[in-house]
């Protein structure tokens, strides 16, 4: 018997809306879960997904993808990447898995919410596949690091990080909860799939795959680029919602959701992806700088597509372009300085050769961020390690949950954006972080940053030991310099040579 081609039956098969007789429409699709915005059911039915895939096709293609990723892992299992790779690269793996793996399950739950509560049949169909994609991403990114747990407890944080109050985990959770875990079907479509997945995931899963290939870590390169092939399909869930919202007078709402998600993604990537690309990845393996990857994926590709689907560039666009030049350098100093409080070993990336590369990629780096590394270098060489650790707490932003910081040196422009709300003083690192808060204060007002918790006496004893205990960091897990400070002695030698 001849079978119909997919396109001959697809549209009919996924037209699954009906008129409910036994319940009200709002009981079937509660507005707070569906994100109805007052738009009638039939208007959502004009949703036309651009990336069509049937369930049998999906299973076949996914099987092929998994067979590829797992066979690369199996073939390279004896390559001893853990034993032979640069310690900076091992830190890339640890930071990635801890920040990402468990959040994939949250993403799966969010896709499931779209699959059940989306009012557009096509959205529900695409999200059903997206839900299974994200389960795959969660499982595979827990399975791959697991082989290293017996050798290095920090790899256990692939599974553990999101169950702790470690500060970077708090920042990641706050952001991921905001843009998908605690959002309705329409918001998830715009914030998770459109803003985050067509934009930022390319940075972490393809930009980093390019670095991984250079570093000879084909297992990781193949894994994350394979994950991104799922993203390239289900990231298309959000796009078709935009014309529906625009046609029904909700363009401003759509724009706001995309603007919030994009800014929040940027801030998290400035602390996670920026340092690993520009400092942890061994110099000879850096394909492009973080800034160059941001230009490739976010400016050239994402922002161009944003305009094509009928939205505008975010109001803070100029500030974003400006921050791409410097924000992650300050975040990196913070992570390295507070290194006992992370589950990986930060690589300083401040050897003479690396500093020359940074100066080339970010002209002015030596005269600004470089001066901080000068002091750190001197203290290490003098054996004054106490001064290479912090004595105080940073001021942490009440939106992105990251330390407020900016470019050091003569152009010092660190700023705090204070904001009084219901008798509580909030601190923000930037106008956009403050703006996000102001859009829906009740959503954010109750949250305490790690520093707020410290000052409220929730972390006892009030010292580093107490903080590490609160964050769940046990001996053998707390971070230290990835290269045991060898770079500092090299940098010092170089300076002596220049001086003589």
């Amino acid at each position: 018997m001849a079978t119909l081609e997919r396109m001959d039956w697809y549209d009919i098969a996924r037209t699954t809306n009906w008129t409910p007789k036994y319940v009200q429409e709002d009981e079937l699709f509660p507005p707070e879960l569906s994100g109805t915005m007052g738009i009638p059911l039939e208007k959502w039915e004009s949703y036309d997904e651009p990336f069509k895939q049937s369930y049998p096709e999906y299973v076949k293609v996914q099987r092929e993808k998994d067979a590829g990723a797992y066979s690369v892992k199996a073939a390279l299992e004896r390559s001893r990447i853990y034993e032979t790779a640069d310690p900076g690269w091992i830190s890339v793996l640890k930071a990635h898995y801890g920040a990402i793996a468990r959040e994939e399950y949250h993403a799966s739950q969010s896709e499931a919410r779209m699959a059940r509560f989306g009012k557009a049949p096509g959205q529900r169909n695409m999200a059903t596949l997206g839900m299974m994609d994200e389960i795959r991403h969660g499982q595979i990114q827990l399975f791959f690091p697991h082989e290293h747990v017996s050798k290095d407890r920090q790899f256990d944080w692939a599974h553990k990080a999101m169950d702790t109050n470690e500060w970077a985990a708090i920042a990641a959770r706050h952001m991921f909860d905001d843009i998908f875990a605690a959002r309705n079907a329409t918001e998830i479509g715009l914030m998770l799939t459109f803003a985050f997945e067509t934009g930022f995931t390319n940075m972490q899963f393809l930009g980093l795959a390019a670095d991984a290939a250079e570093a000879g870590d084909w297992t990781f390169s193949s894994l994350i680029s394979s994950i991104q092939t799922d993203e390239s399909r289900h990231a298309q869930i959000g796009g078709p919602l935009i014309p529906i919202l625009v046609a029904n007078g909700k363009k401003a709402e759509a724009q706001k959701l995309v603007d919030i998600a994009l800014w929040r993604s940027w801030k998290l990537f400035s602390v996670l992806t920026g340092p690993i690309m520009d400092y942890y990845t061994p110099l000879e393996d850096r394909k492009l700088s973080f800034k160059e990857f941001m230009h490739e994926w976010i400016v050239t590709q994402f922002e161009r597509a944003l305009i094509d689907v009928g939205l505008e560039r975010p109001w803070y666009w100029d500030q974003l372009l400006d921050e791409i030049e410097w924000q992650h350098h300050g975040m990196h100093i913070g992570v390295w300085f507070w290194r006992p409080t992370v589950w990986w070993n930060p690589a300083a990336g401040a050897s003479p050769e690396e500093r020359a590369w940074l100066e080339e990629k970010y002209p002015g780096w030596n005269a600004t961020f470089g001066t901080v590394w000068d002091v750190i270098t001197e203290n290490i060489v003098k054996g004054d390690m106490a001064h290479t650790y912090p004595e105080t707490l940073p001021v942490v932003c009440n939106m992105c949950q990251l330390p407020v910081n900016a470019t050091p040196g003569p152009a010092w422009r660190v700023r705090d954006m204070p904001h009084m709300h219901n008798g509580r003083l909030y601190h923000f690192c930037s106008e956009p972080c403050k703006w996000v808060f102001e859009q829906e204060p009740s959503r954010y007002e109750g949250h305490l940053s790690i520093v707020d918790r410290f000052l409220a006496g929730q972390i006892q004893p009030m010292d580093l030991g107490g903080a590490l205990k609160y964050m769940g960091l046990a001996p053998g897990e707390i971070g230290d310099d990835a290269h045991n400070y060898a770079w500092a002695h090299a940098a010092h030698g170089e300076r002596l040579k220049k001086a003589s």
Partner: protein
Amino acid sequence: MSQLNVNNMVGPIMRQGALAKAVFEAAEVDNPGKKILVEDKVAYVRIQTEDEMILRQETIEEMLGKPFRINQLEVDMASFAGRIETNADHVRFYYTKHL
């Protein structure tokens, strides 16, 4: 630098491998008269052209030298520039507005 977004490049970004090579060769055949640009980043390859790109199942199949269904493009397509339209026997990448 802020003008980077003023571009009209569309097309798939493929993981490195045999399919990427076949897709590039098919892009040249299926888009006559258009200049196809390839940017090799080792782990991934950008295959792009201005405004619109068509990729046909039968052309990719011919270049690959083995049976190929157009939906299998997804196995190695990690991202794409522009917007996408999937059809029974071809895929189209495009922008609606030319900048």
